[in-house]
């Protein structure tokens, strides 16, 4: 098991974290932070904080009109604060004892074909529910992310369900294969499939900042950055991180702000300077509706029940 075969993953069983390393990739899975803490590719960091399940997209004017926030507002707090209850690590299919002093038994770096890290999150809303996020790293460095949401009777409808990645600096652009423009489940018939490049990450300038920038039915998205928070870095070349679909296409948005930041602004100029990249990969997205802005809900087929399980997956390449 000791790290001898350079073609395999090099696994470091730390006291707070699990290091998973390979050719030009270095991943840190944190027990303390409750999530994937670091994705380094070619020496370049892609994460600022651990990806967490997200349950909120900023309200639209139609949501406000239909009092969606009054019915489903508890998901906002669930989105902002979540507890990581459990972490499990599987190496080549076997569950590992990861905490000190058990990790003394590894006696050094370890090699593996596959590492699977499974985080179980518990929400703070009532009734509470859990989300299980499983990261599976293979020797090529691909991370397959499987996300399972446990539906619980009595929970109000979701605005979205997905995973939120916060990147240290603002992206230069992103490219994706999917649908043209800003699309939603109930507003994508006019979109054209293709590969698109978006270099302006700013919010769609709706009068009041609100949910925007959704891209449905995506095959892959490449985030391109060159800036870094690493004071020692002198390489300013463009770096790319790709997220691709596993089985089904996914929805995503890539904006400089979190939903709660957007929620707090009544005008665009009230938003802070754009300094991060917030990439959300969604497994379920609520429509925007359009019948009116003072009561009509989004049509039934475009609403998301939180009483039923949601499973989706994607791959970080």
């Amino acid at each position: 098991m000791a790290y001898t075969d350079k073609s395999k993953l090099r696994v470091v069983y730390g006291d707070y974290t699990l290091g998973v390393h390979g050719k030009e990739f270095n991943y840190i899975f944190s027990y303390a932070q409750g999530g994937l803490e670091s994705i380094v590719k070619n020496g370049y960091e892609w994460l600022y904080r651990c990806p967490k399940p997200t349950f909120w997209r900023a309200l639209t004017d139609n949501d406000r009109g239909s009092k969606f926030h009054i019915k489903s507002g508890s998901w906002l707090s669930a989105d902002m604060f979540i507890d990581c209850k459990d972490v499990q690590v599987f190496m080549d299919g076997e569950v590992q004892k990861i905490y000190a002093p058990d990790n003394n038994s590894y006696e050094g770096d370890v090699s593996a074909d596959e590492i699977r890290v499974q985080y179980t999150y518990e929400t703070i809303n009532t009734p509470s529910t859990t989300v299980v996020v499983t990261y599976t790293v293979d020797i090529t460095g691909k991370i397959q992310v499987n996300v399972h949401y446990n539906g619980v009777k009595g929970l109000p409808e979701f605005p979205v369900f997905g995973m939120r990645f916060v990147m240290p600096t603002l992206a230069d652009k992103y490219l994706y294969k999917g649908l043209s423009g800003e699309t939603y489940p109930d507003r994508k018939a006019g979109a054209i499939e293709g590969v698109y490049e978006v270099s302006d990450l700013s919010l769609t300038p709706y009068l009041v900042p609100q949910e925007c920038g959704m891209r449905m039915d995506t095959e892959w998205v490449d985030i391109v950055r060159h800036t870094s928070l690493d004071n020692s870095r002198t390489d300013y070349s463009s770096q790319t991180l790709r997220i691709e679909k596993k089985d089904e296409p996914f929805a995503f948005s890539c904006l400089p702000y979190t939903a709660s930041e957007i929620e707090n602004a009544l005008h665009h100029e009230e938003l802070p300077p754009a300094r991060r990249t917030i990439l959300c990969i969604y497994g379920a997205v609520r429509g925007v509706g359009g019948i009116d802005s003072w009561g009509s809900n989004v049509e039934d087929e475009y609403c998301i029940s939180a009483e039923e399980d949601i499973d989706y997956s994607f791959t970080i390449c």
Partner: protein
Amino acid sequence: MNADIRWIDNPEIFRVNQIAAHSDHDYFTNYEALNSNSHNLIQSLNGQWKFCFSRNAMSRPADFYKEDYDTSYFDKIMVPGHIELAGYDQIRYINTLYPWEGKTYRRGAYSIESAGDGTGMFSEAEYNPVGSYIKKFDLDKELCGKRVRLFFEGVEQAMYVWLNGEFIGYAEDSFTPSEFDLTPYIREKDNVLAVEIHKMCSAAFLEDQDFFRFFGIFRNVSLRALPEAHVEDMWLNPVLNEDNVSGTLNTNIRVSATENQDMCARIILKNVDDQVILERNIELEDKDGDFVGSISDDIKDIKKWDNHTPYLYKAYIELLKADGEIIEVVPYRIGFRKIEIKNKVMLLNGERLIINGVNRHEWNPKTGRCIGLEDMVSDINCMTRNNINAVRTCHYPDQIPWYYMCDDAGIYVMAETNLESHGSWQKLGAVEPSVNIPGSISQWREVVVDRARTNYETFKNHTSILFWSLGNESYAGDDIKAMNTYFKERQDGRLVHYEGSFYTRQYEDTISDVESRMYAKPYEIREYLSNHPKKPYLLCEYMHDMGNSLGGFDSYIKLIDEFEMYQGGFIWDFIDQAILVKDHVTGKEVLRYGGDFDDRPSDYEFSGNGIVFADRKEKPAMQEVRYYYGLYR
């Protein structure tokens, strides 16, 4: 006659000494002027005027119109423009509520006993700002010695006019032209034009549109000299027969002339290749001091007008002296098309009409409802580009060029009359018409019929207009019924639209040719159309595109295939109404909406429902509009 400040209180006085509403045609003194589009008989009065702002009528400089009045303390203001955007009065946005909500208790005159006849309601109000405008001008050479009219294209909301100290007239109806004869008082040099504008008058009850509440001279002002003989009004009514290739052109003209004119009139009709289709003299006869003439001509091999091929013929009305010299030539481009209801389905030129429409307010983020030709061109192009084939001029008549552009582009127009009294009958969402204006109140009847008349008379020659709309969200009563009667009596073949019959079924048969709804849910439409529907169905407003919206379009589009009688609708709406201002914190230009000017109460961001942003950039949802509207174009 002297002006009376109490006219602003009185719903029965709304036009004094105005020239009767008439066709919006252009006129030239000869073909050379026409071909070079030179309007040497028109003198623009746009530009800098002297201006004085007062908080109310009591404190206004009442004598400012007198020639010896010392206006040295007056400010300067640009015309056209809104007084609020010039910084004099608070910018304010509110939707259905009257702008005095929570500040002044008001009920429309005669709507309830306590309101009485309204005397003092506006003229003695503590807050009802007045703009006193002065323009000094010399008459352009070409205008001297001729009959001269003063032509306001839009003044909000009540206006008194004096020239050289003499009272000229009074006008309301903010969104249609107001025209006065200056001939008796005008001089070649040193004319003093004085215009006193009141922010609110009794018409405030009729102009409760969902928009920023502005006042002032916000559209062009000009002097218009008339040739010795002048087509005052004309109605070119092209009728297309069932076969879509033959028809009739009915020509009606009314001519005014200075004394002793021996003249004749002629109509010439040319196709787009300048081939003469028709050339005929029109016999004129004396009538009430003017000359009128009517002829009808059969036309063959007609190319019909529609959205796909907006074919327009060129008509010319010529007024000639006995020796054949042209006195005046009036060009107008007209199309042959037929709108009708057959078997409860609206047909255009015999085919089922599908309305892929949008409501459009006139808006520019820098200048408000004072918009320029470039804004209109941009809007037409945007509509054409995105398969939009119809526009509702919500909720007032637009600037004149807009209708010409719609004729040209084949955009079907629902021409709405300047009327909305939403605040008088809907309270906290509930229908509560106890003090509805105009309702069935006789004292309010003439003013609303006059608005219908002005709308009709001004725009009747526009091929693009398929519908007259009685107004928006004003409930229903005998007065609105009288507006419908007015339009019906014109027998111009167009349909009449009003949504209010939904609330008041007793007027169902007398105020609208169509079943019109706003924001009906798809299942409600299905319900109506599945249960012995009486009329073809359209949505005068639907798909409320506030912020990030326009989802679920499919559910409406499906109805087009499902029900022959479902004929589409007008998206709410075209452009976000927001105002570009300098942010006091960052110094950057930012967009502001209701409540951002300390205006309370407000409906805040509810003014932003466009399919384009306030700067006319397309919202992301536009690709959806283009797609669905493209399916049924």
